[in-house]
């Protein structure tokens, strides 16, 4: 289950990161080292152990549905990269590369 260059290129694409050829080589080596270290964990037989997603038993929290002020819209939009008519503006979405 050794990590290769193609795996790193794949996850970089999933994570929306563009890597140069040199970065691809560097990261492949470094990530493989970390995953090799994790081989001890991957090799354990833990089929009878339940996974823990969260350290403490915290249940969903509900509150009364009462309106209250949120963050100020103008303040939020003031720090956005691009806005138009009180909304976030982005480049075209339709027709993008698959």
């Amino acid at each position, binding site marked *: *289950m050794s*990590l290769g260059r193609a*795996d*790193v290129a*794949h*996850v*970089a694409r*999933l*994570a*929306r*990161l*563009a*890597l140069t050829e040199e*970065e691809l080589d560097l*990261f492949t080596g*470094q*990530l493989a*080292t*970390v*995953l090799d*270290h*994790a081989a*001890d*964990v*991957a090799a*354990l037989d*833990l089929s009878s*152990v*339940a*996974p*823990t*997603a*969260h*350290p*403490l038993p*915290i249940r*969903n*929290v509900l*509150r009364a549905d009462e309106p209250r002020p949120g*963050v*100020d819209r103008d*303040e*939020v939009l*003031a*720090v*956005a*990269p*691009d806005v138009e008519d009180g909304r*976030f503006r*982005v*480049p*075209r*979405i339709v*027709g*993008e*590369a698959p």
Partner: protein
Amino acid sequence: MTVTEDPRGAASTARQVRAGERSAVSVVDEALAAMSSGDREVHAFVTVTAERARAAAEAVDRTVAEGGDPGPLAGVPVALKDNLCTRGLPTSCGSRILSGWLPPYDATVVERLRGAGAVVVGKTNMDEFAMGSSTETSSFGVTRNPHDPERVPGGSSGGSAAAVAAGFVPLALGSDTGGSIRQPAAFCGVVGVKPTYGLVSRYGLVAFASSLDQIGPFAATVGDAALLLEVIAGHDPADSTSFGAPAPELGGVLGEGVAGLRVGYCTELVEGSAPDVVARVRGAADELAAAGAAVSEVSIPELRYGLSAYYLIAPAEASSNLARYDGVRYGLRVDAADVASMNTATRTAGFGPEVKRRIMLGTYALSAGYYDAYYGQAQRVRTLVIEAFARAYGKVDVLLGATAPTTAFRIGEKIDDPMAMYMSDVCTIPSNLAGHPAISVPFGSGDDGLPVGVQVLAPALGEAVMFRVAAALESRAPGAGAAR
């Protein structure tokens, strides 16, 4: 037992300001002056808020003059790690992708500090998005260890630790996901606390790994750290992981001593450490025994898997949390013809190498075909660690170990070797996996003369007993002679 109190610390300062013996403005001006002369070398701060701080100090003084009480931290200067949101003040997490971002709200801890009369004097440097153990991955450049400018302050909350160690501020806040408060506290010779998961609201803390992140205090003394934790702890409806329980009373327990307490010297939290660090932890155990604690050796073999599990779980959560930096709503945007290209161009330019490494590691650990082998398996190890801790705490009240396996390393020493860097978190990670509290207390120095931290671990909501032991260690630490 005598509790150590620093005459220039938070408790004494607040007492003087509340009594009108000293003005908050003079306290804050003194801190700002120390920062402006000393921080050129240390580089603990990325933003200094001189004008806001003076205005806040004036308000504290007015309250005192009018006969009111500004609160338990009246006029005390505090530094904030730059991943805590401050309304209208840059909050960048040491990342280019948030460079210049002005949050539209304050973190709950920031509101609590203000409510207690504390005065924020600046934001501190950190590893980018808290990913790192040396503060070297910050886009603002390195912070230097006040004990030796060639050494790292630790990380990721290195700026906050250095700000307290340099004497710029008596108190600072950091965040601890795998040791990011305790390890820099140990490297800089100050007290650092990771509270129980859920004790301190994380509303307004920029998320790294949500099942592990916790905000906590730095201080020069155990007593001041307890005072700060009392102020920031407690329920917050804005954080769904916040406990409903009231904040713990800590000030009263510090002087209770450790007679009759059961302390476990934890093999796995010491064994991989350098001999001089091991000697200090041994010395700490001996001091606690001399103070009346029942010290025994405890082995928890499951902790050996903690590091591997952490470096799958934390990156997995980070890869999800950091998906929000897409150039759409805030922070950096690098323009491109379509949205997907804009997202990629923005993230590629905005994140540094360590953050990219962790995002890719996490994406891989969560990806089809590897989820069970890596992420799923790490979650099961987390269960093993929690169950093993529970068995240990059936026999002892607290565990004792090293905070970090070495003293502060040299700047540049580990930055090109991620696995070596990750190893510096090996003693701190188990508490994050379990959601338990832990504290690092300065306890003498290593062969190189640099500070060594000893770590006290307790079960969930065991802060009171943890602080009792920490106060005893502080009073019996090498060089603390006067308090004995």
